[in-house]
C-alpha cells in the first residue's frame, strides 16, 4: 500500500486534524478559541498542541493580557506543507 505512506501519522487524531484545519485558514488563534472550535477538554487539547509543536508544525506565542497569559498558535510553513500533503493523500485514497 504505497498510498498509505503519504498519510502522516502525526495527523492521525481528529483533534490534531482540527487544530491544523483551523490554523491553515487563520493566523494566531488563541487557546480558548481553539477549544471552542474543537469542543475538547483543556488537557486533551494541550497534549495534542504540544505534540504538534514538538514536530515544529505550529508556532506558539505567549503574551500578557492584563495579568493573565494568553497563548496563541500559528501554523509554520512546514506544518502547512505537511498538512496539505496529508489532505491530498486522503483525497487520493477516497478516489481509489
Amino acid at each position, binding site marked *: 500500500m504505497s498510498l498509505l505512506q503519504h498519510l502522516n501519522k502525526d495527523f492521525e487524531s*481528529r483533534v490534531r*486534524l*482540527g487544530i491544523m*484545519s*483551523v490554523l*491553515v*485558514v*487563520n493566523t494566531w*488563534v488563541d487557546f480558548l*478559541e481553539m477549544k*471552542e*472550535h*474543537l469542543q475538547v477538554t483543556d488537557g486533551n487539547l494541550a497534549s495534542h498542541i504540544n505534540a504538534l509543536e514538538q514536530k515544529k508544525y505550529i508556532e506558539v506565542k505567549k503574551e500578557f493580557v492584563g495579568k493573565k497569559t494568553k497563548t496563541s498558535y500559528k501554523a509554520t510553513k512546514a506544518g502547512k506543507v505537511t498538512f496539505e500533503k496529508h*489532505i491530498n493523500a*486522503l*483525497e487520493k*485514497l*477516497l478516489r481509489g
Partner: protein
Amino acid sequence: MIQDVKDDLQHIRKMMEQSSRFISLSGLSGVVAGIIALAGAFAAWYIFKQHHIDYFDNYRCGSTPGLVSQLVLLAILVLVAAIGLGVLITVNKTKKQGLKVWTSTTKKLLIALFVPLVLGGLFCLAALYHGHFEIIAPLMLLVYGLALINAGKYTFSDIQNLGYCEALLGIIAMFWPGYGLVFWAAGFGVLHIIYGLLMYKKYR
C-alpha cells in the same frame, strides 16, 4: 477505512469553515430587511405626495426643508428596524446551532461590513448637505454593494454575489436619474427578499 477518510475530510472542511466564516447568517433576516425596505420606499413615496410632489413627474423640481428632514427621519427608522430585526433573527439562529455569537470571525465580518458602509454613509450625508438628491439612492446602492463584497469573505459567498448585484444596480440607477426611489426599492427591497429566500432554502 474509506468511511474514516471521508469523516476526516469532512471534519477538516467543517473546522476550516466554522473557524473562518460566520455561518449563522439567517436568510430570514434578509427577507425581513427587504420587506421593511419596501414599506419604507412606499412611505417615502407617500411623503412626497403629502408635499404635493408627484415623485415620477417632477422629481428634480426642488424640495421644501420639511420634506428632507421627514425623509431622513424615515431613512433612519428603516435602517434601525432592518438592522435590529436582522441581528435578532441571526443571534437566535446562532444560539439554536449551539455556536457562540461573538467570535473573532464575527468581529472581522462586522469591521469588513461597516468600515465601507460608514465611510460611504458620510459621503452620502455630504451629498445630501449640498442638495445632490438625485445621486443619494444610486450611491447608497453602490456603497452597500461594495461593503457586502468586502464582508463576503467572512461569511457565505452568496453575500458577495448579492453585493455585485446591489453595486451594479446602483451604477444603472446613476445612468437613470429621477428613478432613485424605484431602484432603491428594487435593491434594498426586492433583492434582499430574493436572496433571503434563496439562502433560507440553502442553509436551513
